[in-house]
């Protein structure tokens, strides 16, 4: 089990009633997909707001960043960066800059 830091976008912080950063425990090996699974397990109200409930496909205007890299288009079995796994860097779930 690994504990990682996750930063949520403002709308989802309000929805989950949490602060800017949360920690979640994820199963080993820690991957992009298991991180998202852990966030949704810890905060069920976020199910469907980050990924499509049926397909787990990332919603179009959501992005995943870590260690200055865009992981949005990576597969769910992508290993998380070591710095995220070690808790030195957060995993960022970001609302894309779009709209008005």
């Amino acid at each position, binding site marked *: 089990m690994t504990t990682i830091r996750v930063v949520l976008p403002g709308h989802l912080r309000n929805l989950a009633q949490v602060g800017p950063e949360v920690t979640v425990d994820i199963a080993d090996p820690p991957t992009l997909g298991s991180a998202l699974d852990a966030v949704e397990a810890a905060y069920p*109200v976020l199910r*469907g707001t980050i990924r499509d409930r049926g397909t787990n496909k990332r*919603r179009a205007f959501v992005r995943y960043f870590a260690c200055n890299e865009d992981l949005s288009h990576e597969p769910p079995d992508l290993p998380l960066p070591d710095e995220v796994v070690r808790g030195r860097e957060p995993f960022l779930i970001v609302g894309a800059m779009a709209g008005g």
Partner: protein
Amino acid sequence: MSGVRVLVGTRKGAFVLTSDEGRKNWQVDGPHFGGWEMYHLKGSPADPDRIYASQSTGWHGQVVQRSDDGGKSWKAVGNDFSYATVPGTHQWYDGTPHPWEFARVWHFEPSLTDPDTVYAGVEDAALFRTVDGGQTWQELPGLREHGSGPHWQPGAGGMCLHSIILDPSDADRIYIAISAAGAFRTDDGGKSWKPINKGLRSQGIPDEEAEVGHCVHHIAMHPSRPDTLFMQKHWDVMRTDDAGDNWREVSGNLPTDFGFVIDVHAHEPETVYVVPIKSDMEHYPLDGKLQVFRSRTGGEEWEPLTKGLPQSNCYVDVLRDSMSIDSLDECGIYFGTTGGAVYCSPDGGDSWSAIVDNLPAVLSVEVQTLR
């Protein structure tokens, strides 16, 4: 002491407006869910403190909120609107088949008798129901699987199921309307549906009198006359007196019969209200004058109601779910605009004043009469 609670959904949050029965002094609470699109909020007739709200954004999809204390506090409930069967296709804008995809909830219609039972009209058009207070939602697939489904196509706002009317005299009878498929009725609690569009004529579709394909904007009913419905279609104001089997036009002397909202006086089943909009190309009032029109004759003969409404340089729209009517002894009429105003007439439409002027664009207005 009686009063009213007005639930306002806007492009950037929800607002709760409350007043005593005088409807002169208002308390404004909000925004709730700031920054989210609030397509619709509606309270349970069986328990006015139970309110359901549709919350969504293009970023994060659909959330459903429920209040058990009249809108003071809220709790997110279920947001899984999975179609009950493998969705087929409907027509896309270019005429090609397009898979049914859930986008958002446009309208909640709580049961007349059970606070935990609510119907939800969604885009892409389908009817869902919860019987556990919103925790889980089940589709009534007979509507989507009506044989005409592959021929339905979206209106400009999406293929939305926006109107749901529960017959107070027959629990198995429900009316719904879809843009741009038309109106449908079930007489068996949602298992099977029939199109009820006979008498509608719509230019812009190949067969003007087709069984489906009409852009119905909204439908209203007076509970004492469940077989009589009034419809604001894309163009034309329509009426049926046989539960939708036959419609006739009652636009009469309206200056334009394009519009979105329509509603019926709480105590006078033949008194009907619309807000004429200039045209399908120009979604604002005629001549920059915001006018409600009232018919006391069930249509055909209409009078403009303008006292207190802006009569110059007004170019707002009034969207389909943005009119509501209370049931106090002197019936109050409410509507909201895309300019962010919510107007109230405490005297059946004779005079108006703005409760609020500058909210985000109003998507829906529902009033609860509190006794």
